C-alpha cells in the first residue's frame, strides 16, 4: 500500500478505468501538442537564426491560420468537456441500491458507521462488487474524502451533508487521505479502506468484534430522550403541534413561504438543528433549536430513525416498480432492526429481492 515506488496509481474501483482512459487520452494529446509546439519553436528558431541565409521577405498575411486553429480546437475542447462530464456523472450519481455508510470527519480523524451500527475509525471495510454510498459531514472544518485507488474525492463540509460513492473491484488495502487542508495534522488525517471479497466481508461483519447498536435504534432512543414524539405524532392522530415524520424522507415538504423543499438528509439535519430556517406550511414555529445539544453522530442516528418511520408505506408503494429502496437496509424490512446484519450480507451478494 503505497510503500513502493510507482508511477501510476493502483486501480481498484469501477470508476478507475473510466478516469484513467480519459486521463491517458489527455496525456497523449498533450504530449503531441507539446511536442508540436516545441518542435516548431526549435525548427523556426534554428532555421531563421541570424547566421542562416534564408528568405525573410515580409509577407502580409490575414488571420486565416488562427481562425483555422480555433475551428479545429473548439470541437476537440467540447469533446473533452463532454467526456469529462460523462465520467463526472458516473462519479457523482450513486446507484439506487448502494450500501449506506455514514462518515463524521473531525480534526484529524475519520469516523465511520455501517448500517448495522458497526463503527470504525480511520479504517473502512467494504466488500467488492457492491456500490457503497458514504453520507458525510464534518464536525469542525472542511475535510475531503480521497481514495486515489478509487479515483474519487468529495469535500466533507461542516453544516451540510455531502456524499460520495464507489464500487470496489479489487480486494486489498487502499490509502485514504484528507485532501482539504484542515490544520496542523492535516497530513496525518489518513486512513485505509480495506476491500474484501463478499465472503470475507460477511465474515468480518459477523466477527466477534463488539457490534454497536444499529443507527436507527440509537436514533429511536434519542427521539424518546428528547421527547420529539410530543409534537411529531403519527399521521393519523389529530391535533399534533408539529408535522408528522411518517413518510417524510424524500417527500416534498410545503413551506410557509409557498415553496417546497425536498426532504433529503441535509434538510432533516437543518430542521433538527435550526428548525426556524425552513418553516413547514401550516405549523407554528415552536420547535426549539437543538444546535449544540446533539452531536453530528446523534443527528445521523435520528435521521436513520426518521427514515424507518416512512419505510413500511414507502416500500409498499414502490414495490411493484423497483427493487427495495435500500438507502437504509433497516428500512426494507418492516420487522426492523435485528434483520440488518443479514440484510447487508444479502445485499453484498447483490440479490436484494
Amino acid at each position, binding site marked *: 500500500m*503505497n*510503500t513502493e515506488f*510507482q*508511477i501510476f*496509481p493502483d486501480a481498484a474501483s469501477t470508476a478507475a478505468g473510466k*478516469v484513467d482512459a*480519459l*486521463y491517458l487520452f*489527455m496525456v497523449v494529446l*498533450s504530449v503531441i501538442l*507539446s511536442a508540436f*509546439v*516545441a518542435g*516548431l*519553436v526549435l525548427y*523556426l*528558431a534554428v532555421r*531563421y*537564426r*541570424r547566421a542562416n541565409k534564408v*528568405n*525573410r*521577405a*515580409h509577407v502580409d498575411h490575414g*488571420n486565416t*491560420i*488562427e481562425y483555422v*486553429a480555433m475551428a479545429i*480546437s*473548439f470541437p476537440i*475542447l*467540447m469533446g473533452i*468537456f463532454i*467526456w*469529462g*462530464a460523462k465520467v*463526472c456523472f*458516473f462519479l457523482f450519481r450513486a446507484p439506487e441500491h448502494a450500501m449506506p455508510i455514514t462518515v463524521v470527519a473531525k480534526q484529524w480523524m475519520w469516523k465511520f458507521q455501517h448500517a448495522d451500527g458497526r463503527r470504525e475509525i480511520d479504517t473502512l471495510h467494504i466488500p467488492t462488487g457492491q456500490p457503497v454510498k458514504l453520507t458525510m459531514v464534518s464536525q*469542525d*472544518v*472542511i475535510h*475531503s474524502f480521497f481514495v*486515489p485507488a478509487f*479515483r*474519487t*474525492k468529495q469535500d466533507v*463540509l*461542516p*453544516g451540510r451533508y455531502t456524499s460520495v460513492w464507489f464500487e470496489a473491484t479489487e480486494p486489498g488495502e487502499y*490509502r485514504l*487521505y484528507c*485532501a*482539504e*487542508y*484542515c*490544520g*496542523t495534522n*492535516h*497530513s496525518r488525517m489518513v486512513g485505509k479502506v480495506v476491500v474484501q471479497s463478499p465472503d470475507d466481508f460477511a465474515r468480518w461483519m459477523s466477527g466477534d468484534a463488539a457490534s454497536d447498536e444499529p443507527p436507527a435504534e440509537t436514533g429511536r432512543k434519542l427521539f424518546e430522550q428528547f421527547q420529539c414524539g410530543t409534537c411529531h405524532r403519527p399521521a393519523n392522530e389529530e391535533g399534533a403541534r408539529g408535522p408528522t415524520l411518517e413518510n417524510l424522507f424524500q417527500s416534498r415538504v410545503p413551506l410557509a413561504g409557498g415553496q417546497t423543499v425536498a426532504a433529503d438528509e441535509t434538510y432533516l439535519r437543518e430542521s433538527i438543528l*435550526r428548525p426556524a430556517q425552513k418553516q413547514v406550511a401550516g405549523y407554528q414555529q415552536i420547535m426549539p433549536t437543538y444546535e449544540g445539544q446533539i452531536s453530528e453522530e446523534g443527528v445521523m442516528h435520528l435521521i436513520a430513525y426518521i427514515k424507518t418511520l416512512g419505510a413500511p408505506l414507502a416500500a409498499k408503494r414502490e414495490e411493484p416498480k423497483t427493487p427495495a429502496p435500500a438507502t437504509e437496509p433497516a428500512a426494507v424490512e418492516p420487522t426492523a432492526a435485528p434483520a440488518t446484519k443479514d440484510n447487508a450480507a444479502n445485499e453484498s451478494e447483490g440479490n436484494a429481492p
Partner: protein
Amino acid sequence: MTGEIASTTAFPNPEREPKNYLNAAWTVRSWLLTVDHKRIGLLYLAGISFFFFLGGAAAVLFRLELMTPHADLVEAETYNKLFTLHGIIMIFFFLVPGIPGVLGNFLLPIMIGARDMAFPKLNLMSWYLFMIGGTFTIYVTIAGGVDTGWTFYTPYSSTYSNTYVMATAVGIFITGFSSILTGLNFIVTVHKMRCPGMTWFRLPLFVWANYATALIMVLGTPVLAITILLVALERGLKIGIFDPRLGGDPVLFQHLFWFYSHPAVYIMVLPAMGVISELVAAFSRNRIFGYKLVAFASLAIAVLGFLVWGHHMFVSGQSLYAGMVFSVLSMLIAIPSAIKVFNWTLTLWRGEVTFSTPMLYSIGFLGLFTIGGLTGLFLATLGIDVHVHDTYFVVAHFHYVMVGGTVMAYLGGIHYWWPKMTGRMYPEGWARFSAVLVFVGFNLTFFPQFILGYLGMPRRYHVYDEGFQVLNVMSSAGASILGIAYLFPITYLIWSLKYGPKAPANPWNAVGLEWMTSSPPPTENFTETPVVDFEAYEYHRNPAGAHG
C-alpha cells in the same frame, strides 16, 4: 569618448554626463518622495526582489523537509506556516505586483510616449501601500506566522486557526488597494496620455496586456477586499458568515475567494504574456504574428477569466450542473491562450532569430507555459479534476503557469530592459548560463509533481507515504538547483550596476519608443514629445542590414 581627460578629475563634471532620471538627484528623499514612474518602478524592483527571496527561502526550507517522508527538519505547525508564507508572499507580494509594478511602471508611459503616469502621486502611494501591506506580512513572519494556506479557507481561517490571521488579512487588504490604484493609473494613462500618432493599434502588446490586467485589478480586487473583511468580521466579532456553527456557509467563502483569485491568475500571467510579445518580436526582428488577435486575446482572457472561478470547486459540494458550466467556460479560455502561444511561435517564421538571454527565457516560457496550459485542461475536465484536485498535480500545474510562465517572462524582461533601466549591460555569458539553469531546475522541481499528483499525493502534506519519496527527492533536488539559479541574476545584475559596460540607447537594435530615448532615459523620458508615424514592431521597415 571625447571627455576622457575630464573624467580623471575628482569632481564629476555635470556637463559631461547627460542628466537622466538616475543622476537627477542623489538624496534618499529624492527616492522616497519621487513621483517619477521610473524611480517608482525601481522602488518596486527593490521591494519585490526582497519578497521573492523571502518566499523562495520558505520554499527551500519545506522542500528540504520533503526530502524524507517523515517529520524531521520542522514540525507540522512550522511546515504549514512555511507553505502558507510561501504562497502569500509569492502571490500577493511578488506575482501580482511584480511585472506591472516594476516593468509596467517603468515602461508604460515611455512606450506610449508620455512623460509620466496620469496620476504620479497616486502611483507613489501604490508603492507605499504595497510596502505597508508587506510590513504586516513581515511582522507576521517574525511574530509567529500564519497557517491557513494562502487560500484562507473558512471556517478554518475564521474560527479554528490560532495563528496571525488578522494581521495577515490586514496586510493583504492594504496591498489590494495598491493593486487597485495601479490598475486605475494604467487605465487612465493608456486612455489619456498617448502621444500624437500612438493609436490603439500601434500600442506595443505589453501595453495591451497591462491594460487588460489593469481592468481585472480594478474589477476583481475589491471582491478580495470584501472577502477578507468578512473573514475578519467573523473572526473578530463572531458575526456568522462562513462558519456553519454561527449560521454561515463555508462554501460561500470559496465562491468569493475564487471570484477574485482566479482572475488574479490572469493578473499574474497577462503582463508576462505582454513581456513575451516584446521579447519574441525583438529577438526575431519581426512583427508579432497576428498582432490584433494577440491584443484581443488579452481582453478575451480578462473577460472570460471572471467566469471560470467555479472550476476550483468541483468537489466542494457545488452542484454538478454548475460544475459543467464552469468546465465548459474553462475550456473556452484555453482558446485565446493557445492563440497567443501559436502567434509567438509563428513570429519566428521569416524572422532573424538571435539567442540573447531574454530570448532564451522566452523560448523557455513557450515550452513551460504550453505544458502549464495543457495541464490546465486536465483540471478543467470534470472527470479528471475530481481525482487530481488538491493533489500535487494542481501544484505542478500552477507552478508551470506562474513560475514557468510569469517568472520566466519577468526575468527575461528584466534582462531585456536592464540596459534601459540602469544604463548598464549585464554579463551575457553568466546570464545565458543562469537562464538554462533556471529551466533545468524548474523542470526537475515540478515535472515529478504531475506524476505525484496522479498517484494521489495530496498537497500541503508534511509527512507522506514512503512510495512517494523518490519523486519528492527529485523535486527537492530541482528546487535546490532553482534556488541557486536565482542567486546568479541578483548577483551579476547588482555587479553590473558598477562594472557592467555602459549601455547605448538601443543595445538590441529594437523598435519601440523606449529604445528611441537615451539609456537611462531623462526624467521627462523624451527631450521632446515623440510623434508616432509607424506601426508597432515595424521590423520589416528596419531590416537587419539597415541598422547601425
